[in-house]
């Protein structure tokens, strides 16, 4: 059976949407899966809505983008209008309620899951690692990606930042654990 996850991560510039998308693709590849990631980008260099398209499959992946997301993460209210076209009947929507109000999603009938990434990040460490919680959550949802593989991919990608702030390595790893913990017991 072909396994295919089409994941759309949406938020705003500065939240680390593209970093987490790229690491997710890397960790999936390291876990023996096929993966392909493409960012959505416009003329603006900073700010604006940020979308990351990640596909993870047991087989070769074709086109870099997709029409229907299987999992859609929303971490900014202003991303909502941009992601509507990627929602299909079975799209699972994971949103951070502190960043995206229920109100703004109320006309979308899909199954929704609360992903309190910012709250958890702020309570336990710093809001900066919010994206790592989302990353852990998504890796957990995809399955077949171990915590160890994911941490390795994170540390390899972000090693440059560890020189300035050595505590970040610990924070990232902890955030991954929290994120992966959110999917325990959840079957899709």
């Amino acid at each position, binding site marked *: 059976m072909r396994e295919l996850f089409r994941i759309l991560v949406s938020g705003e510039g500065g939240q680390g949407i593209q970093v987490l998308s790229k690491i997710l693709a890397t960790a999936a*590849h390291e876990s023996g899966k096929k*993966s*392909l990631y*493409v960012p959505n980008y*416009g*003329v603006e260099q900073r700010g604006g809505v940020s979308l990351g398209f990640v596909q993870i499959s047991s087989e070769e992946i*074709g*086109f870099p983008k997709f*029409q*229907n997301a299987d999992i859609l993460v929303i971490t900014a209210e202003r991303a909502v209008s941009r992601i509507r076209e990627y929602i299909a009947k079975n799209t699972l929507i994971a949103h951070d309620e502190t960043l995206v109000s229920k109100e703004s999603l109320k006309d979308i009938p899909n199954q929704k899951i609360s992903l309190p990434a910012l709250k958890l990040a702020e309570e336990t460490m710093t809001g900066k690692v919010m994206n790592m919680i989302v990353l852990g959550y998504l890796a957990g949802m995809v399955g077949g990606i171990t915590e160890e593989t994911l941490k390795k991919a994170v540390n390899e990608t972000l090693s440059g930042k560890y020189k300035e702030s050595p505590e970040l390595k610990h924070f990232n790893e902890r955030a991954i654990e929290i994120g992966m913990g959110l999917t325990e017991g959840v079957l899709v």
Partner: protein
Amino acid sequence: MAQVKVKSVLMTGNQVVVKAALTVGAEMFSGYPITPTTEILSEWAKEAEKDKKLIFLQTEDEPAAGFVMVGGVSMGKKAWTATAGVGNVLMQDPLSMAEAMRMPTVTYVGQRGGPSTGTVVYSQQELNLTRMGGNGEGMRIVYAPSNLQELYDLTIKAFNSAWKYRFPAFILSDGYLAKSYGEVNLWPLKKSDIVPTESAFLNPKKQPNNIRNCFSQEPELYNHLLEDFADFASISEKVAEAEVIGDKNSHILVCAWGVVANSAKTAVDELERQGISVKLFRPITMRPFPVKELQKAAEGVTDILITESANGQFGRIVRETLYGLLEAEIHRLYKPAMGVMPEEIQSKIREVMR
């Protein structure tokens, strides 16, 4: 056959192109930054920092970058450039010169939306410009990769074909491919896999050449052009490449190229799983165009669906190639400057079948 060591890595499209260029022995890059190909320039700059034998020049604009490339090539350097959109428009002056003087330049194009500045992201609207641009007759070799692996393979091929046949070569890609990040197998090359270079002006074995892009009499230029046309015609069958996938006996033919062909492939595979048979024709070279391959693929077909991220630039080539040969109905899924998703192609095929 000896075991070849293949390195499988994760990379972005732009990184893949630079890797391929280095593998096939590129020595010199001149360019002017433009999204989505700027990383080609910055990656090459980094490589040139490490390897002092590599030449790098960021010029004041695209025409200058192109003329620097022509200059490098004329002296036997494996020189190349990368551009996109309006940069590709500006680059046509030096590229016409390369055509006139049969200079094996290599140009990587990352198509973005047009006309004018358009979008920085994606389109297939630079097909006419890349195949036939300039004030010449399109004596060019144009490869169209559909995925990251082909970006590697066809960049290598473009350099080799350019130097083997002495026509300007192009890798016609787009922003989606350029910015995609995924797995690529980096094949190492043997020395014999790489076509060597020589200086057009200072060939030690021959008399110094006088290569011209300026003629005083009409018949002079005319006769010169006839020679080039004959040369181009003689290499066309060797260079032209296409891929036909799916059910060869299907009465429905989908025609797509580049990354859209990749999308169409996914659609055809998916329909096959559902018991619907379709075939897909996908040119690998956009020029010379694989005329015979398309004509063969279209035999016995009742419906043809042409899909592209432009408003019929590719469609016109398909229809011209098949003109008068069949009575198939032509259907169009044209989405200028927009991606064409596999789901859309699937539902269009279902619509055609109804």
